[in-house]
């Protein structure tokens, strides 16, 4: 018989207990973060996972759970993205399939690596330092690029570089014809790109769009119109493979966290894609790159400043 049924806080009814992260979290805060990143995704076309995972870590979600759950939520915006690109016939399924073969191999390697790093106790360090490296790289490249574009359009000069160059990469064996992309190239290169992106996706909880898009344009020489749709197509499978493997190998996918995030992001993307003409693309990218640089700085500071306590504990469940 229960006499009293007391709770700590009556006012915090918005808190929801995450079953895998094993902690309560404010559901509106997570929904808001999801919506905000969805908005950025809709406005700029990039910026899902690689901002979401660090923000989850800042909110106190253990890095392994953050990475795995973000990979899960990435499936949703990728599916809706591919559907809209498919309608406009902007997906090269043949190229996407070759890429995703590499991606599945890569993400499987990534999950194994993730498991191994967890066992030796260096997972948090590797996740955080990979984020510092990649966010700094992407943030500063994007910042420089958008600043250059802004300055150039102010001066009134618009110039275009070559889209497609032939180099030694086109001399590799196992060539295949990709009619949609108007390419005749070795499949080794897209497979290798897929593997690298797959490893990063599994380790960092990202789709890898920010690596695969430039790689498709500059290394493979694909037409820009097909790049986003095709990369989203392969991200669906890489993220799905990562989710299933993370769930079966490491039990780190928090379905409650992922669901709240993806509900937020799905709404955000739709709002974002409706207001793309509010700000010019290069200004949006300038803002986004500043956010990315700030996030990577915060992560870097956490890694290099003297911790308040040199000792920490792990309580095994």
């Amino acid at each position, binding site marked *: 018989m229960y006499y009293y049924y007391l709770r700590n806080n009556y006012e915090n009814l918005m*808190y929801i207990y995450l079953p895998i992260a094993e902690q309560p979290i404010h559901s509106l805060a997570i929904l808001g973060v999801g919506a905000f990143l969805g908005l950025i995704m809709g406005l700029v076309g990039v910026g899902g996972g690689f901002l979401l995972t660090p923000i989850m870590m800042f909110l106190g979600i253990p890095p392994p759970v953050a990475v795995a759950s973000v990979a899960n939520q990435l499936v949703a915006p990728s599916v809706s993205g591919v559907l809209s690109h498919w309608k406009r016939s902007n997906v090269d399924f043949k190229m996407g399939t070759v890429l995703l073969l590499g991606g599945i191999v890569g993400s499987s390697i990534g999950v194994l690596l993730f498991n191994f790093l967890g066992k030796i106790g260096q997972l948090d360090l590797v996740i955080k*330092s990979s984020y510092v490296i990649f966010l700094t790289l992407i943030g500063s490249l994007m910042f420089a690029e958008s600043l250059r574009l802004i300055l150039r359009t102010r001066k009134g000069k618009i110039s275009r570089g070559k889209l497609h160059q032939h180099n030694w990469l086109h001399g590799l064996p196992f060539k295949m014809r990709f009619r949609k992309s108007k390419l005749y190239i070795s499949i080794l290169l897209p497979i290798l790109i897929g593997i690298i992106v797959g490893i990063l996706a599994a380790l960092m909880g990202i789709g890898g769009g920010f690596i695969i898009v430039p790689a498709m344009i500059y290394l493979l020489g694909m037409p820009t119109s097909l790049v986003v749709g095709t990369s989203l197509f392969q991200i669906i499978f890489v993220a799905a493979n990562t989710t299933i493997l993370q769930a079966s190998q490491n039990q780190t996918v928090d379905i409650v966290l992922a669901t709240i995030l993806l509900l937020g992001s799905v709404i955000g993307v739709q709002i974002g894609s409706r207001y793309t003409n509010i700000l010019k693309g290069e200004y949006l990218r300038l803002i986004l790159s500043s956010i990315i640089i700030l996030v990577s700085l915060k992560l870097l500071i956490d890694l290099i400043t003297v911790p308040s306590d040199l000792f920490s504990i792990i309580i095994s469940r």
Partner: protein
Amino acid sequence: MKFYFHIKVVFLFLILNTNSYAQNQIVADLSQENVKISTDFQGAKILLFGAYDGKKGDDIIVIVTGPKGLVTVQKKEKILGVWVNTKKVNYINAPKYLSISSNRKIEDILNKKTQRISEIGLNNLKIRVQPGIGVINEKQWRQALTRNMLKSNLWSINENSVSLNKDALFRSFLKLPSNVITGQFEVKILHYRNSKLVSQQINSINVSKSGISAQIYNIAQNYSTLYGIFAVFLAVLVGWGSSLIFRKV
């Protein structure tokens, strides 16, 4: 609910006064013996109450001990400018929850020696380091364990938190934080008179996951691949659904 609780307390009191109960016995009960971690769990506050055959100046100490198991303490060192976990010590039977509550300062109730013998106090617990691995300066690791467990609210010392009434009734609130570990919790109530144990009682609390939260956790542990596939399926469904809904708007 509250009414029944009062009746029960009065009833306990009557038993003691009519001497039908054994002398020097302590009787205690908990407002909640099963704590369920469900989707809205934010920690629990349990009322411990009871009666004891006391005299003026008697003391009550309540020790709640959670499940014991492996707790690893890690130490960071600077390598190439970055702070990296380099050393670790495994404590194999550390309580994953511990709260010590009393009606006044424990040092006023028991002297240092008695505290050590009866394992009362955070530093008097016998927690073993994993055998086979030599530990240099074990004291600093043990201190780090205590400090971090206190910081995570899993361990606590609550002096003056047991309230006594007319040397016959006592009550105390036991707080379980939201990050509490599931399992069996032992609630030991000790009644001291002039630093000597007069009587004691042991109750228990069972903390378990329940509802959707428990089911999700169990499925994730036991049917992990299926869980992963379902998580992907759900995300695909939401992604596909959203493009259908928003296209029409």
